[in-house]
C-alpha cells in the first residue's frame, strides 16, 4: 500500500515547492496546472503557496507556449511547462527542437535556455494510440536537450531539482503509472546530477538488466522473483538518456557478461538500439547474445482485449532471462507460475486495483 506522503507525485510537488522557495524566478506553466486535480496533485501545493502568478494556467497552445517559455527564460525566468501527455508536446517540436535545443550553440554561446518540459507517459484504461507514446528516444536524438526519465520518488525529486536549476532545456519524462508508487525520499532540498546517467538499483552477478521509468520498476519485481530461484540480477536504472554516460553499464556487463535491455517504447531506433550500439563499440565480450525487450512494433490499441499483450510484463522479462541463462525447464515452469500469480492480481490495464483515475 502506498505510504501517503512518500508518493512519486509528492516528490515532484516537493521539488517544485522547494525550488520555487529557493528562487523566485521559478514558475510553473501548463494546461490544467491550476485545476482541481493539479496535474495528478503535483502542482496543488505550489499553487497554494505561490499563487496563480507563479503557477500559471495557459491556453491550449503548446507550440507558442514553448516559445514563450524560451522568451521568458531570456529575461531570467525559469519555467517548467507541463504536458499531461507526452503526445501533446509534439505540437511544440518546432520551438523545442528548432529553437530551445540549439539556442546556446546557434548563438555562439551568448545565451542559454534554462527551461523544463515535463511530460507524462500514459498507459492503461484505453489510453490508445495518441495518449500513451513513450517517445524518450526521439527527444534524446537532439544535441542540446537533456532528457531525464526517473523511476523512483527519491530520484525523481533530486533529478527534478537539478533539471530546474540546469542552464539548459531539460525534457523530464515520467510515467503515469509511477505516480502511485511510494518510496522514501529526503524532505530536504537535494540534487541528483544529470551527468550520472545510471543508478545502481540492485547488485547481482548473473545478468545485467538496464531499463528506465516503469520498466525499471518491473525489472525490480523480476529481480525479487528470480532471487528465490538462485538467479542473481544486477538492475541498473537508466535515468538520464542525454547526456548519456554508460560507464556503470560497461562495468556491470564486464562482471555479469549477460545483458538484457527493457524498453518503455518501440524497439526500432529505440533507446535499446543506442545502448546496444554503445556496447558493440566498446567491444564488450558477452557470454550470451544480449536481448532487447520492447513494446510491440505498432501504436497502442485502446481496447483492453487488444493491449493485453502489447507491453512487456514481468513474465516476459523472467522468461527472457531464463532463455539467456539457459535456466532448467522445471525451474522455468515454477517461475511462470509465480509470474502468473502476480499478473492475475491486477488487471493488465491498471497500475493497481484501486486505480480509478484521473488518467
Amino acid at each position, binding site marked *: 500500500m502506498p505510504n501517503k506522503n512518500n508518493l512519486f507525485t509528492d516528490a515532484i510537488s516537493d521539488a517544485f515547492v522547494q525550488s520555487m522557495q529557493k528562487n523566485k524566478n521559478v514558475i510553473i506553466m501548463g494546461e490544467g496546472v491550476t485545476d482541481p486535480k493539479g496535474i495528478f496533485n503535483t502542482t496543488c501545493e505550489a499553487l497554494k503557496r505561490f499563487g496563480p502568478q507563479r503557477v500559471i494556467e495557459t491556453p491550449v*497552445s503548446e507550440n507558442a507556449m514553448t516559445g*514563450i517559455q524560451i*522568451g521568458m527564460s*531570456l529575461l*531570467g525566468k525559469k519555467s517548467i511547462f507541463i504536458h499531461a501527455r507526452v503526445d501533446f508536446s509534439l505540437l511544440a517540436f518546432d520551438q523545442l527542437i528548432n529553437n530551445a535545443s540549439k539556442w546556446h*550553440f*546557434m*548563438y555562439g554561446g*551568448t545565451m*542559454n535556455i534554462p527551461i523544463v518540459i515535463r511530460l507524462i507517459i500514459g498507459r492503461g484504461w484505453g489510453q490508445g494510440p495518441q495518449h500513451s507514446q513513450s517517445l524518450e528516444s526521439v527527444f534524446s536524438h537532439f544535441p542540446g536537450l537533456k532528457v531525464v526519465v526517473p523511476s523512483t520518488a527519491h530520484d525523481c525529486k533530486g533529478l527534478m531539482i537539478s533539471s530546474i536549476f540546469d542552464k539548459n532545456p531539460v525534457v523530464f519524462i515520467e510515467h503515469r503509472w509511477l505516480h502511485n508508487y511510494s518510496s522514501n525520499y529526503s524532505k530536504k532540498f537535494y540534487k541528483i546530477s544529470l551527468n550520472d546517467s545510471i543508478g545502481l538499483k540492485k547488485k547481482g552477478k548473473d545478468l545485467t538488466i538496464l531499463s528506465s521509468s516503469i520498466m525499471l520498476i518491473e525489472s525490480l519485481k523480476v529481480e525479487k522473483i528470480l532471487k528465490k530461484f538462485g538467479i542473481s540480477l544486477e538492475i541498473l536504472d537508466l535515468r538520464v538518456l542525454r547526456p548519456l554516460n554508460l560507464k556503470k553499464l560497461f562495468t556491470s556487463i564486464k562482471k555479469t557478461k549477460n545483458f538484457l535491455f527493457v524498453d518503455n517504447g518501440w524497439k526500432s531506433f529505440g533507446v535499446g538500439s543506442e545502448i546496444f550500439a554503445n556496447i558493440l563499440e566498446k567491444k564488450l565480450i558477452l557470454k550470451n547474445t544480449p536481448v532487447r525487450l520492447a513494446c510491440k512494433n505498432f501504436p497502442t490499441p485502446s481496447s483492453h482485449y487488444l493491449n493485453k499483450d502489447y507491453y512487456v510484463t514481468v513474465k516476459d522479462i523472467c522468461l527472457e532471462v531464463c532463455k539467456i541463462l539457459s535456466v532448467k525447464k522445471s525451474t522455468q515452469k515454477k517461475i511462470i507460475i509465480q509470474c502468473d500469480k502476480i499478473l492475475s492480481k491486477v488487471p493488465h490495464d491498471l497500475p493497481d486495483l484501486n486505480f480509478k483515475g484521473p488518467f
Partner: protein
Amino acid sequence: MLNLFGLARIRVIEKEIAREYQKREMRCPIHLSIGQEAIPVGVSKSLNTKDYIVSTHRCHAHYIAKGGSIQKLISELYGKEDGACKGIGGSMHLHDKSINHLCSIPIVGGSIPIGVGIGYALKLKNKKNVSVIYFGDAATEEGVFFESLHFAALKKLPVIFVCEDNKYSVYTSINARQGNRSLKKIVESLNIKFINTLNNNVNDIEQKTLQARSYAISNGPVFIYSKTYRHLEHCGPNNDDDLKYRPKKEIDYWLKRDPIIIEIQKLKKIKRFNENKYLDFCNSVRKEIITSFVNAKKSKPFTFSKLSKLEYAK
C-alpha cells in the same frame, strides 16, 4: 535629416554587402532589406534602448536600426569568430544582447512566441518596456502566429507586433496564399489594436510606433501593419525581375515609393535637404563597412574542436 540618415545607413550597408557578396567569400544565404528600411528605422527611433526586438531571416535592417554592431554582422557573414554568433548561426541569426536584439529566427513565425515570452517576462517584472516582434506577411499564415497573438492579448502584454508586408513569400504572391481574407479583422477579433501605416513613410511609422509603445505598456498588444517592397531577390544579392513573378507595373510603382526617395522629397519640400551632407554621410558609412570587410577577412574562424563544448551551457 536624422531619419534619412537612418535609412541611408542601412541602404549603404546592404548595397555594399550585395557588391562584396559577388566575390563568394561570404558563404551563407543573405536576405537583404533594400527597399524595406522605413519600418525598422521608424520603429527603432521610437523605442527606448532597453526595449527588446526579435527578428526573422530578413534581419539586417532590424539589427542595424536598433544599433547592432556592424563588425559583428559582417564577421558573421564571413563565418568568423568575432561574428554575432561566432559564425555558428550565420546571417539569419543576428542578435546583439547589448542592444536587446535577442534573436533572429529563420523558421517562418518562429520568433513570434519568443517575443511574446519576452513581453510576458517584462510584464511579470513590472518593467515599463516593450517587446517588438518583426515578421513578414507569410508568418501570419502560421499556426504559431495565432497562438502567440492569442496569448499576448489574453495577458495584455507590452508587445508590438510589426508585420512587414512585402507582398511575397519567396516568389509567391500574397493573393495566392491569403485570398481576400482580412488580416485586420483577424487581429481585431483577438482584441488587439491594429494600426496601419503610410507605406514606406518613416515619419508616419515612427509616430505610430510611439503611440503603439505607450498603448502597449498600459493596455496590451498592438499590431502595426506596414506595406513595403523588396528591391532585390528574396535571397541573394541580385535583382531577379527577369523571372517575372512580380508584375512590372507593381515594381515600378514601388520603386517610385522607395523610402529614401519619399524622405528626400519630403525634406526638399521643407527645404531641409542638404545633398552634400547626405553624400558625406553615405561615404562615411561606406568607409565604416569597408573597414568591417577588411577586419572580418583578417579575423579567425572559431575553433572546430571547441564546438562540441557548446552543446550545453555550463
